[in-house]
């Protein structure tokens, strides 16, 4: 039988707020263990949570971008279970009335172009980190670092509408781009800033009922999600093909060994005893706040990508690369000379991105060195056929090390560009006069010889002419010498 996969993702996005979700402790990486803590995030007796307004603003920003319904009143709830890295032994989260409901994330054309429907987005607090067990002499120790405890998270849950591992990867890639675009998260999966669990089930192709699902945890890279889901689909297919049934379970994906391990069967499911957290008031989002979040919403990455393709007529590949980050897209747009989107795209995608890569710079670091107007001036002169390619590349290299406009740099380095027709026309005429043989051949239709004439003219200009200009002048002069029929 042919099986169809039904996949739902549950993603956790760590927000890049300055402070934690319910206290004033800094959100930071790499601090000494248990230093970014206070009575609240340590869960000390008597301590109470207070909501971080910045985290809510971030949540709203994401909710608006994804077209979610924003609840005017949502409720924080306690999810009760014991774990040593969760100081209160309950997590403050949202359960029945969550901040955002519905909405969808549109996948890029490469990802299949579908819009993936969302169930909800809600705010919650992160747990700390456990390290265990470690041997010390004859004893085994577990250690807990609570620096991460209380860091704000958004949980985003999709409907069970994804159909393939590749689509899962495309979803996460798009989500990562979006959260970075909106500035709500750094979205680094390796640092745990973006985490993902997957619910996977199979059903006969064409069926509309749902099969028994399993939950995959520990998918800590986009590749990991793709491979983990693929492995689980393969495992379930084998079971079903053999006439066995899939049993509800939670599985861990081991990325190093590319295999799945059963963490627990669903018979031991938790009863989390959710109830509204009496320490926190109902979370109210006013109409004004909603309107403000909507008004402040930037052009979204998929919309901009479409605009680059459709309005700027960039190839799909260029549009995708240039909208990988908002900084890059903004920079690109700021250095497009009038009517030359493709020229700017070429330069940003090759020259600029090469520097970013080799120097490991962010777009912001690059832009601090070479502000967009500077690059735009250079590109405008290239577009106007005023600079030969090698000279333009040289100027670009000088940009990195030196200040000054294009003209100033050329001047400083004694580079003369023979640009104007008045300057080049005498050279062109002299070349034609000195090479009657090749001229005759070209006029007789042997176009291959045209290159020879261009080379001669370039040589005569001392390499300072723009080839396109030389070519145009040569063609014009040759046309003038063509015997009239």
């Amino acid at each position, binding site marked *: 039988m042919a099986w169809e996969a039904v996949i739902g993702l549950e993603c956790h996005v760590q927000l890049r707020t300055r402070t934690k979700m319910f206290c004033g402790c800094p959100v930071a990486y790499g601090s000494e263990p248990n230093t970014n803590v206070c009575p609240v995030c340590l869960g*000390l007796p008597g*301590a109470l949570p207070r909501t971080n307004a910045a985290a809510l603003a971030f949540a709203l920003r994401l909710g608006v971008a994804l077209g979610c319904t924003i609840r005017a009143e949502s409720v924080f709830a306690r999810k*009760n279970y014991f774990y040593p890295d969760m100081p209160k032994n309950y997590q403050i989260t949202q359960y029945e009335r969550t901040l955002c409901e519905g909405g969808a994330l549109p996948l890029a054309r490469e990802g299949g172009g579908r819009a993936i429907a969302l169930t909800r987005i809600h705010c919650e607090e992160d747990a700390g980190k456990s390290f265990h067990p470690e041997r010390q002499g004859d004893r085994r120790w577990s250690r807990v670092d609570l620096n991460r405890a209380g860091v704000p998270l958004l949980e985003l849950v999709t409907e069970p509408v994804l159909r393939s591992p590749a689509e899962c990867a495309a979803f996460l890639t798009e989500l990562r781009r979006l959260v970075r675009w909106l500035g709500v998260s750094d979205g680094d999966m390796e640092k745990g800033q973006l985490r993902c669990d997957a619910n996977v089930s199979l059903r006969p192709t064409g069926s509309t009922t749902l099969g028994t699902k399993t939950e995959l945890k520990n998918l800590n890279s986009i590749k990991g999600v793709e491979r983990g889901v693929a492995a689980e689909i393969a495992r379930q297919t084998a079971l079903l093909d053999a006439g066995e049934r899939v049993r509800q379970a939670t599985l861990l994906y081991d990325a190093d060994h590319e295999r799945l391990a059963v963490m627990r069967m669903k018979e031991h499911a938790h009863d989390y005893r959710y109830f509204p957290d*009496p320490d926190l008031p109902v979370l109210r989002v006013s109409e004004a706040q909603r309107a403000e979040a909507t008004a402040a919403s930037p052009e979204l990455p998929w919309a901009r990508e479409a605009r680059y393709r459709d309005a700027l007529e960039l190839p799909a590949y260029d549009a995708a690369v240039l909208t990988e980050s908002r900084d890059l897209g903004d920079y690109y747009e700021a250095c497009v000379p009038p009517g030359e989107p493709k020229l700017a795209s070429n330069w940003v995608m090759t020259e600029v991105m090469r520097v970013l890569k080799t120097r490991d710079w962010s777009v912001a670091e690059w832009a601090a060195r070479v502000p967009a107007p500077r690059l735009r001036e250079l590109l405008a002169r290239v577009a106007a056929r005023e600079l030969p390619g090698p000279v333009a590349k040289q100027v670009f290299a000088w940009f990195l090390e030196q200040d000054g406009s294009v003209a100033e740099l050329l001047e400083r380095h004694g580079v003369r560009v023979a640009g104007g027709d008045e300057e080049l026309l005498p050279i062109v005429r002299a070349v034609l006069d000195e090479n009657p043989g090749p001229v005759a051949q070209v006029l007789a239709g042997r176009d291959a010889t045209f290159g020879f004439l261009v080379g001669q003219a370039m040589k005569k200009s001392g390499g300072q002419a723009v080839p396109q200009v030389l070519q145009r002048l040569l063609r014009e002069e040759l046309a003038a010498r063509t015997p009239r029929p």
Partner: protein
Amino acid sequence: MSGPAPWRLSAREVAAAVRDGSLSPGDAADAGFAGPGARFEGEVHALLASDASARKAAAARVPRDGVLAGVPVLLKDNLCTVDHPTTCGSRILEGWRSPYDATVVRRLREAGAVVVGKGNMDEFAMGSSTEWSAFGPTRNPYDPSRVPGGSSGGPAAAVAYGLVPVALGSDTGGSVRQPAAFCGVYGLKPTYGRLSRYGLVAFGSSLDQVGVFARHVGDVAEVYRAVAGSDPFDASMLEGPAPDVSGWAAGVRGLRFGWPANLWREGVDGAIVAALERAASWLERAGATRVPFEFLPGAFAVAAYYLLATAEASSNLARFDGVRYGLRMRSDELATLYTRTRGAGFGPEVRRRILLGTYALSAGYHDAFYLKAQRARTRIAHEYAAAFARCDWMLMPVTPSLPFRLGEKTADPLAMYLSDVFTIGANLAGIPGLSVPMGLEASGLPVSVQLVGPADAEPVLLRAARALEAEGDERNIPPGHEKEFAWPGKR
């Protein structure tokens, strides 16, 4: 200085004496220990901790111009303090020291008060007799064979016997008002959201409120003023400033008090009924009008209360697990570490309530118990609101009975729970209640009445209490039963 011994002074008198330099904060703080404390504490056991050097250090730092300059206060042991341990009367927190002061404690210190120690309580504030303290019961200073009430029994008894003029407790279902009644002192449970809960170790978060004990109405007002008001560290507080109680002595002329006599038609001790009649006639004499009506604040209030309070408690007390602080029973295995620590650290009443609350929230029972109790709570709040459309406050009993004997109710949890019937309404509705001593009844036990008002009615409740206090100064101590050590004195 001449005049009464310092331990007999009201908080306002202590502060005035400290401000004018006639009394040093150190002497003020030591007064209760040197006076009756030396005689009574051994028998009553109101204190869980009292660190003389911490007291001395605190007295040395007192701002001399504070409204409570030099006033010694005792804190219930569920209010976090940096200079004394905070145990909540539980083995699981034995010796634990908070790295921070509760907001109300910080405000007391800023006003000049000196924390002289921590008062005994039922473990985690769960109980009505202070018999459930892991560190031994507190006894009633009027009769050591009887309980002082609970859960704030230690602070109530200490104020009664003269260790301190004022104390703070906490009231989740009557835990300030009932011990105040049993010990013959004033006990205010303020409107929910007017006193910060930051640093009050939670029992039932939506019901808990810090409360004030004092021997004088004016002292209740002064302490309320010092500690009330919004706190950015407590998100559950009401918006805006706390009501102004400076007019506590303004009298009750022209005000109306509700008289829901159906509440005490049966099952209430005759001495308490007599005290209610006496209070009503005094209020009428002071110019207030009695408005009789039937009042049935939800027949299921006790059931709703014990479901909601225990549900919240089951979650609030989850953090006591032996991992980060407090008692730890070692084990190589996590689940065993939890179960052994909690089994050894929590007493029987706390375990019972955690089980009850866990059950009430469990899948399959959540709707039938927790949700239904929430609906009952909403309805009870509406019933109180409807009653207050007809009066400025209601007069009612604090408890159905006078102080009971130690051991009388510990074997029957339900009987103990039912004794909260008149106090839990204010917690469910989030409204203020004030326990007012009406003197001693024939056998020498204190008898009290309760004033309950709508949200933010503290100013009115204090005015009514003052009207009763003014009358009581003349009449409310039956001859031959005056306990000079405990009674406020005729000022």
